[in-house]
């Protein structure tokens, strides 16, 4: 009857979104009177994993087999399914991400588990198990009952208000049985920008659109993002035009974000763009056109020229520090 959380690692540390999943898992366990175990796969350390205790986990299973250092959808799915069986977990909790989607799906198929993604709140146990999930790219919600014995829940960012405690988790080695078929897919190269705030994980996002006129003008966007410690994002035409890399594209056909603060600069606010950002807690819109539809979805608005307003905001933040 226990709860197992699949934690993703980034450079050996548990990702922020996974810490949220661990906390979510501990709340589920509390409601069910059971405990939370975390599964971490890949290179890490005992100290880095013991952090899970602060978020309510009592134990971390660490699969440190060197073959697992490069994330492999199939191998990770096999390891997670084995951990579910080893802990007799009823609930598998994880944070939604491209790896999380792929792994949770394969695990559900292995376990014949109910799977619900984009969950935005803690489960309701008043009759069976139901969760609230976001649908239509943030335009609506659905209440969904999970009817199988095993249940996989993939949460969206900010699904739960995390409160850090002072617990520490014990870390145990977990040696799964792996076979060659788990490694049939070969990763031949990785291209990753380093030192940047990861967009899906970010609490603060500065996003810019075609109003910036060209890629050579992105300095003012990056300066503002750096001053805030924010991630940068962009509208679809901006990535289509190759002004910015594709992994910054947010919206209905891009990354969906739900940060605490989303600042939109020179973006008109087309319905497809809004769909990917409308679950942000606070939205700021800076646009020179007072009729831009984005203002209707905003909490704060400035009708102004981004080339004037952005550098002034950057200065104001630096001055306030």
């Amino acid at each position: 009857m226990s709860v197992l959380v699949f934690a993703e690692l980034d450079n050996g540390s548990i990702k922020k979104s996974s810490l949220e999943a661990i906390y979510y898992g501990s709340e589920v366990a509390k409601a069910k009177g059971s405990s939370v175990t975390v599964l971490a796969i890949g290179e890490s350390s005992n100290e880095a994993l013991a952090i899970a205790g602060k978020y309510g986990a009592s134990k971390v299973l660490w699969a440190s087999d060197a073959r697992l250092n490069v994330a492999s959808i199939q191998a990770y799915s096999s390891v997670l399914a084995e951990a579910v069986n080893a802990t007799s977990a009823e609930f598998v909790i994880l944070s939604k991400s491209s790896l999380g989607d792929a792994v949770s799906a394969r695990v559900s198929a292995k376990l014949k588990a109910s799977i619900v993604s984009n969950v935005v709140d803690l489960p309701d146990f008043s009759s069976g198990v139901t969760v609230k999930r976001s649908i239509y790219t943030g335009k609506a919600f659905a209440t969904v009952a999970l009817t199988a014995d095993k249940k996989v829940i993939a949460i969206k960012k900010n699904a739960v208000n995390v409160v850090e405690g002072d617990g520490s988790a014990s870390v145990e080695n977990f040696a799964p049985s792996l076979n060659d078929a788990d490694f049939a897919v070969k990763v031949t190269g990785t291209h990753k920008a380093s030192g940047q705030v990861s967009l899906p994980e970010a609490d603060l996002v500065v996003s810019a659109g075609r109003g910036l006129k060209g890629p050579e003008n992105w300095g003012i966007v990056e300066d503002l993002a750096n001053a805030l410690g924010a991630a940068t994002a962009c509208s679809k035409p901006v990535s289509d035009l190759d002004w910015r890399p594709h992994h910054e594209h947010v919206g209905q056909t891009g990354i969906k974000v739900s940060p605490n603060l989303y600042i939109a600069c020179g973006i008109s606010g087309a319905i497809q763009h809004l769909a990917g950002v409308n679950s942000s807690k606070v939205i700021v819109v800076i646009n020179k056109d007072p009729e831009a539809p984005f203002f209707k979805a905003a909490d704060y608005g400035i009708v102004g020229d981004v080339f004037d307003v952005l550098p002034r905001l950057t200065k104001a933040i630096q001055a306030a520090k």
Partner: protein
Amino acid sequence: MKILVCITNVPDTTAKISFTDGDTKFNKTGVQYICGPYDDYALSRAVELKEQHGGTVTVLNVGEAESEQVIRKCLAIGADDAIRVNTEPTDSYFVAEQIAHIASQENYDLILMGRESIDFNSGVIHGLVGEMLGIPSLSPVMKLEIDGGVAKMTREIEGGKEDIEASLPLVLGCQEPIAEWKIPNMRGIMSARTKPLKVVEPVGVGLTITEKYALPAPKGAVKMIPAEEAEKLIDLLKNEAKVL
């Protein structure tokens, strides 16, 4: 090469979302349906691969009769035939079961679909189908070339991308820029009318039940800050909104 492309019949991206019957049903009145934008990328790449390597492209939709308009459009874009599993696609596991069931009856080299549907956005069908068939699944794939029996791909990861090689058969969730969206031409539209569309009944049962829908609470009024006083925004974000 035999390619199966799984497509969704979904409300247009500009559709206004509302519910009826005490918030238990999606309100279809006045809603235009389209082929999921990600599925469109998958289909376009499938048609290009067929042009390069020969073979067939079969379109598969799990959906009710109203999907047929969108299925015909896929045939007009260049698919050879289509299969519709006659049921409402209500649960990820259930939909994947249908796809795996159909796929297991033929030897497809590639099973392509969008990275996620734009109605339920779960992004899990590719993984479920891959596991049910016992073959690798990858998503989101943004580049796909076939060289002999090997697929060379680029997959988006957080903050970048990775290059991947794997032998066929594979299940792939696709996204841009894997191909350019294709628009059907007159000849395609004419020939689509007579291409085979087989309707089959579903197997298995779902593992979740959607009980109720809700719309988000309406947004409060926007607070405007004059451009001359733009700096005040920082103070408001700190002390009023408390997000800094």
